[in-house]
């Protein structure tokens, strides 16, 4: 097991487990055809790779279809309340450095009711792996538009079309200065697992957006990214150290905007090779990754998938624990002796 898959700095314990070990005895109850099944299978298939004992893994979720996820994994798990899983996970992570803590959330859970907790977990860089299932719709409440639904979306609650502009979860996470941000797709197990691997190896917060199909209320939302005829032209696969060239014929590339701040997609033939951007996940300034996150068109053309950003940053957990550890260094007395001294601190007087 590599150094990078250590849990919160705890020494790794070699454990040999299989996908079967991570299946719980609960009947899975998502709608037939839901993208969540594929994600569940990918995660169950990936977890043995961590080399971590099941009891050291915790999945916490909020509310929504995706948030039923913990029930189906044979690890420790908590299905909590709407939007609050990152906050609950923070309390667990900071007090239990020996655990691998994962948060399962959806677009409504993470970005609407729980938006505050998500951005604060990311800015603190709590050691959490946050898997955000984005299906661009409210599924469990039967089909209202979500904070990632496209503008003008017609749903039960927006018969005249949504007046909201959507969040781009990757842009949002980068705006909160998340130290690890990635995007993947439910149907591409190999890609999904490669992203999970990178997220697990990252010390600190990892936000993984997973495009997930809701075949009941928003079917085919990401179809152009999956269809064999279109996907190669639509998907920009991010690989660290590789030039950002994509398209079935490699006909597109990413270059810096002339005189502007950001990045743009241009025909490869029109760009000198030296001017094609080489992907680097380790750029400290989040502006590069943010510019990447702004490339997709409304029709999903130029959608980057893969790791946008993976930079080292002190984690909240480590900093808090270090403060405690440093405060305890000079302490030689027992806790009860310390408590006695604490009670007697300040101005006291004795009556006989």
């Amino acid at each position: 097991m590599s150094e990078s898959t250590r849990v919160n700095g705890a020494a790794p314990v070699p454990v040999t487990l299989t996908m079967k070990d991570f299946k719980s005895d609960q009947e899975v109850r998502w709608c037939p055809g839901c993208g969540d099944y594929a994600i569940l299978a990918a995660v169950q298939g990936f977890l043995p790779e961590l080399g971590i004992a099941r009891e050291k893994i915790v999945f916490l979720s909020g509310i929504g279809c995706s948030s039923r996820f913990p029930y189906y994994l044979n690890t420790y798990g908590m299905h909590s309340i709407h939007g609050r899983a990152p906050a609950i996970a923070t309390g667990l992570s900071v007090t239990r450095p020996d655990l691998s803590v994962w948060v399962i959330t959806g677009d409504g859970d993470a970005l609407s009711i729980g938006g505050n907790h998500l951005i604060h977990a990311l800015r603190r860089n709590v050691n959490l792996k946050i898997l955000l299932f984005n299906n661009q719709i409210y599924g469990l409440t039967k089909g209202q538009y979500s904070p990632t639904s496209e503008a003008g979306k017609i749903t039960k609650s927006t018969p005249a079309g949504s007046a909201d502009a959507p969040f781009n979860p990757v842009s949002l996470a980068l705006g909160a200065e998340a130290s690890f941000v990635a995007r993947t797709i439910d149907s591409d197990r190999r890609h999904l697992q490669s992203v999970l691997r990178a997220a697990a190896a990252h010390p600190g917060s990892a936000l993984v957006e997973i495009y997930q199909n809701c075949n009941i209320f928003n079917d085919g939302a990401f179809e152009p990214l999956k269809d064999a005829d279109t996907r190669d032209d639509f998907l920009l696969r991010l690989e660290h150290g590789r030039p950002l060239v994509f398209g079935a014929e490699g006909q597109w590339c990413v270059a810096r905007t002339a005189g502007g701040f950001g990045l743009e997609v241009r025909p490869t033939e029109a760009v000198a090779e030296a001017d094609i951007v080489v992907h680097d996940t380790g750029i400290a300034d989040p502006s590069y990754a943010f510019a990447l996150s702004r490339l997709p068109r409304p029709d999903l053309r130029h959608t980057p998938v893969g790791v946008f950003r993976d930079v080292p940053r002190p984690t909240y957990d480590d900093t808090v624990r270090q403060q405690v550890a440093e405060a305890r260094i000079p302490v030689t007395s027992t806790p009860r002796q310390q408590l006695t001294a604490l009670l007697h601190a300040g101005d006291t007087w004795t009556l006989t």
Partner: protein
Amino acid sequence: MTQVSDISGEPATGARRAAKPVARLERVIIRFAGDSGDGMQLTGDRFTSETAQLGNDISTLPNFPAEIRAPAGTLPGVSSFQVHFAEYDILTPGDKPDVLVAMNPAALKANIDDLEPGATIIVNTDEFTPRNLKKVGYAANPLEDGSLGSYHVHGAALASMTIDALAVHEVSKKDAERAKNMFALGLLSWMYSRPYESTLRFLERKFAKRPDLVTANIAAFKAGWNFGETTESFSVRYEVAPAPLPAGTYRNITGNAALALGLVAASVQSELPLFLGAYPITPASDILHALSRHKDLGVVTMQAEDEIAAVGAAVGAAYGGALGVTTTSGPGVALKGETISLALMLELPLVIVDVQRAGPSTGLPTKTEQADLHMALFGRHGEAPVAVIAPRSPADCFDAAIEACRIALTHRTPVILLSDNYVANGSEPWRLPEVADLPDLRVAFATEPNGPDGTFLPYLRDPVTLARPWAVPGTPGLEHRIGGLEKADKTGAISYDPANHDHMVRTRAARIEAIRVPDVEVADPGAAARVLVLGWGSTYGPIGAACRRLRQGGHAVAQAHLRHLAPLPGNLGDVLRRYDKVVVPEMNLGQLSTVIRARYLVDTVPYHQVRGLPFTAAELETALLEVVADV
């Protein structure tokens, strides 16, 4: 008569005179009042500390505006600190000050109505300018128009005398002027023969990084002391003898400080790390501040992004096996409601401290009230019973915090601790407990499967406490999933079965009723009373003082005070039915009364006040007398 001299090491200002006579008083109530920026809380706090060391019994009442700096010299900007000290045990900060220190016209105007004729007023004459007088609506200078004729008024140019006294030191005029509160403290310390060494040490600590301010403040203090000694305005000084309190080591403590120490003690006694999730809110923030300084004992404090995250993080920590606590005030509890319900569904230990303030909404954030009782008992969705307890005095916050943790840990339930602004910021002498005498709060985590064939049943209950196992992540073989969805009995699996839900709802209620709480005690000297006064929380002092007055006047009256609001003590119904009348004074519109009537079918005589201030003993005495005389 004792010979006293001026403060050693400094020549007295002005000509030396013979030491003044000393008169003995049984008790004194002093109120320091000034502008928000005048340092009245600090002044009162120091005077209290000096007084505590003398062995007097003490009770204090800070009263300050919500604004950090309201417009200078205005009535809304007045901040005050009342200290009551006596040679016998006292229960309240006192009703009517014997001495008012008024640093400006606004302080005089805001407080004069609370004084009885004959009271002493010390005013800072520097501030009694036409502009300042006009600002608070004085048509004429009350120091000159005879309107204060029934009081003993001592005018002193506190600010200019302080500036003069500091002229030889290298401090700016602004810093010198700001030290006038120490001049006032020095004067009052002289008047009441307080030992001042601790104040000098305090000033050295407080301004350790500004030696010039240490010098300035100490010089101002000494100037004030020596002014008392030398000026002809004060012909006598006073002493209040130590109170005959039980033997032991004491310190003066506020409720918030005691509560923080109680939580630390519970952490030590349970051998669990204390995790506090909190969002700043008046008047609870001091608990966060205090606990954030105890990292040496393994305490982790998290200033969360909001109230919901604060309690959520505490639940997460509790899930992982820590002592999870969140501290807040009423508006915060409203926000935390959903998470408290989750914790009770998960059946995890959690302590929620509500330092109540006057509501609803932002209300009067620096004033006191006990109007969150119904929210604590009933303010959640569904059938959501939790344990509720309340401290009765500042020092009692220590014991109440330990009791809250005991119930939470033993019974795996959220516990709401209802403190309030009065006990949180008020102070009294606290006899320090022996750590060896504190309860053992250690818990046993689940370590082994408890079901058939090596399975783990996360909702298999202890037959006595009805608590489920506390199986923390990291325990091999006990992997399980919990959540807010209704659970099947024993297995904890998701269940939509109607009979199971009915069973689980009733079981969650039974869990709370199964908490063992001590019987309520009744103070009924002579056992002749026909009227019982029932209170809860911070009204203990005023009710006790009122009952004492009634008894001194020859009336029999019984007093009972509730620490446990949920579950209620087992003997409470019997106690209530023993009396012809049950009076329930509350700083709300009758919330405990409603509970008592509904639960025991015993009528009550409610007595309410929601002025943001604690009851005075006098008003309670009057109200109780009406009932006592009527039976």
